[in-house]
């Protein structure tokens, strides 16, 4: 069992939920995934990072007395009394195979790989289902207009959970189309970096080989001295990045 929950204490106010049809009593504060573990499930499919970063834990649910079908990520959505849960860890949406090097960054590439893109009804069911708060309908609309870069930009936070496709009446594979748009953008549409190209040339010429060979030959003491004497480039207003 997940160590974060295994404290041995029994919370007082357990609530009823139905997991894959069976009723269990679980603590009300837990995310769905932890509640399933609490109920004794050994998670195999449908679990992953626990941070809402992966698409491994898509879950569909209904609440007792409410006709609506909801969806969310099991690691992020907190249980509610009377929830009926079904996990959809895998959604078999269509994925096209392509050779990125042979495509052109135009609408033709998108429609060629995913002709059904044009069938989108603009109903917005996908946007409502997205646990990342992405306006899926809007990126689909950008795709239909052939605005690849906008589709890439709007869909960037997609974790490919498949919940949008699960709710789509037009059987779109939104997240796969968006992935193609992002790859076309990264490869063809954003401007190249002059400083990177220059560095590649310098490395090819062997410009750094002597410096590196020298560093590799230094004793720990000499390295320590060099390290302590390093000049630290001042930070700009963007600050640093981590993890």
């Amino acid at each position, binding site marked *: 069992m997940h*160590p974060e929950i295994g404290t041995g204490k029994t919370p007082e106010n357990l609530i009823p939920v139905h997991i894959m049809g069976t009723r269990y009593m679980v603590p009300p504060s837990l995310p769905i995934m932890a509640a399933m573990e609490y109920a004794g499930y050994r998670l195999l499919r449908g679990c992953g990072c626990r941070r809402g*970063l992966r698409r491994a834990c898509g879950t569909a649910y209904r609440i007792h007395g409410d006709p609506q079908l909801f969806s969310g990520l099991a690691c992020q959505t907190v249980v509610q009394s009377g929830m009926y849960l079904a996990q959809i860890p895998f959604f078999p949406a269509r*994925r096209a195979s392509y050779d990125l090097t042979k495509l052109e960054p135009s609408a033709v590439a998108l429609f060629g790989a995913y002709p059904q893109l044009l069938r989108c009804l603009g109903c917005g069911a996908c946007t409502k289902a997205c646990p990342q708060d992405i306006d899926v309908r809007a990126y689909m609309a950008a795709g239909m207009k052939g605005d690849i870069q906008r589709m890439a930009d709007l869909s960037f936070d997609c974790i490919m959970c498949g919940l949008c496709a699960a709710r789509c009446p037009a059987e779109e594979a939104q997240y796969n189309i968006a992935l193609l748009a*992002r790859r076309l953008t990264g490869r063809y549409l954003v401007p190249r970096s*002059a400083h*990177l190209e220059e560095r590649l040339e310098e490395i090819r010429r062997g410009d*750094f080989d002597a410096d590196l060979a020298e560093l590799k030959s230094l004793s720990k003491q000499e390295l320590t001295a060099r390290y302590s004497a*390093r000049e630290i480039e001042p930070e700009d207003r963007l600050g*640093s990045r981590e993890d």
Partner: protein
Amino acid sequence: MSGYPTAMQASISRVEATRGRRLRETFPAVSLEERQQVLDDFHPDYIEENMRPVRVGVSKGQRMPLELADVLEGRPHIGANFDLTASAGSTDVVIIGGGGAGAAAALLAQEHGARVTLVTKLRFGDANTMMAQGGIQAADRPEDSPAIHYLDVVGGGHFTNDPDLVEALVKDAPLIVAWLESLGVMFDKQADGTMVERHGGGTSRMRMHSARDYTGAEIMRTLRDEVRNREADITVVEFSPAVELVLDESGCAVGAVVVNLETNAYSFLGASAVVLATGGGGRLHYQGFPTTNHYGATADGVVLAYRVGAPLGYLESMQYHPTGAAFPEQIVGLLVTEKVRSLGAQPVNKLGEQFVYPLEPRDVEAAAFIRECQERDKGILTSSGQRGVWLDSPMVEAIHGQGTIQRNLPAMVRQFDRFGIDIAQEPILVYPTLHYQNGGIRTRPDGSTAVPGLFLAGEISGGVHGHNRLMGNSLREITVFGRRAGRSAAV
């Protein structure tokens, strides 16, 4: 309403009372000697009773956490009489592990003419790679160079790194940024194409590339998509962990035994070379620490390789990220990004006092948090018995203006908001969490190991980071050595 219980709110008031003064003064960084002192006394790697030497195998006598020594000495899943004719087929290169290192290896092996089978324990991409948010290092600005990057890496690693591996890492780094771009990875850039690059703990130049807050996910989903595009040559088998490597009479690796998690059937997958890319072991919860790692990170590959005779290295050092969530209980261990500190939030104790420079190297920062909670007893105790110190996140808004937190850390805001905590208004309780396996199986720059036919790449390996990895160098490592291992295995 605050999501913190009343007992903790009293301490929060003290944090608020000192905030004004702390906005003007920051606790100074300590000398190299003082760093060593706090490490010796408080870092988990130095707690003798929680470590022991492994008693069997080529690296007999190496010190490591008890839990890891136990699994290295554990009984195998299958017996010596296992029937190798229960075959799952054969291929040129079998790759074990579907994270970033495995995907990069698959692509390069395929490009060098090999038929590839990639087996993975959960789903393809269910991996630590997917969770990396911060960034990836490469020295590609004129102010920077691979040599300066080299110095940062070995200084961060306490000068114990394998020099050949570091050289490969820093020299390949810019090439791999270009490779990832050619596959369609969208790095953060300015309008003219200049990369947006920042500092990270231990960097002397700004060289941290990023893809918004999804750097690892962007790399992983792109590599995975490309692997899927090559399905004619690369077969991916999910929910099928490897449980043993197989050597031929001459001691060459010739495949692996895998188990199908759905049917529990064991079978042998034959190959002319094997690439191990199974990642780290945070889920072994060394010394009872919580972890940031994904569910499948249980050091499997280290055990598999060790059982066929590959030497270990650097496993006495694990990386504890100083800021794991310590409250509420449901998210204990989850990563609170270092960005919170780099944007200006200070760690403070229950009295609202600073006690450490906010951006010491990770091991030093983590040890200082533990000292504050243990020796000095100035930590905050939660109702579930977890200790922690405050990370004063509201300072970020005071320094950079209202809305900065929502703009820069939307995922974190969402995470805590679910529990009624507004991190723009209230501090975050943090405690070190098990984050990264610095060591692993010894490897060479071409990804080869002491066992012929066995190659490896990624967090499973040991040497490139010495005793301490700097952030942004592991996404770098998995792509550099994933490519190298894949190529070596194919040729």
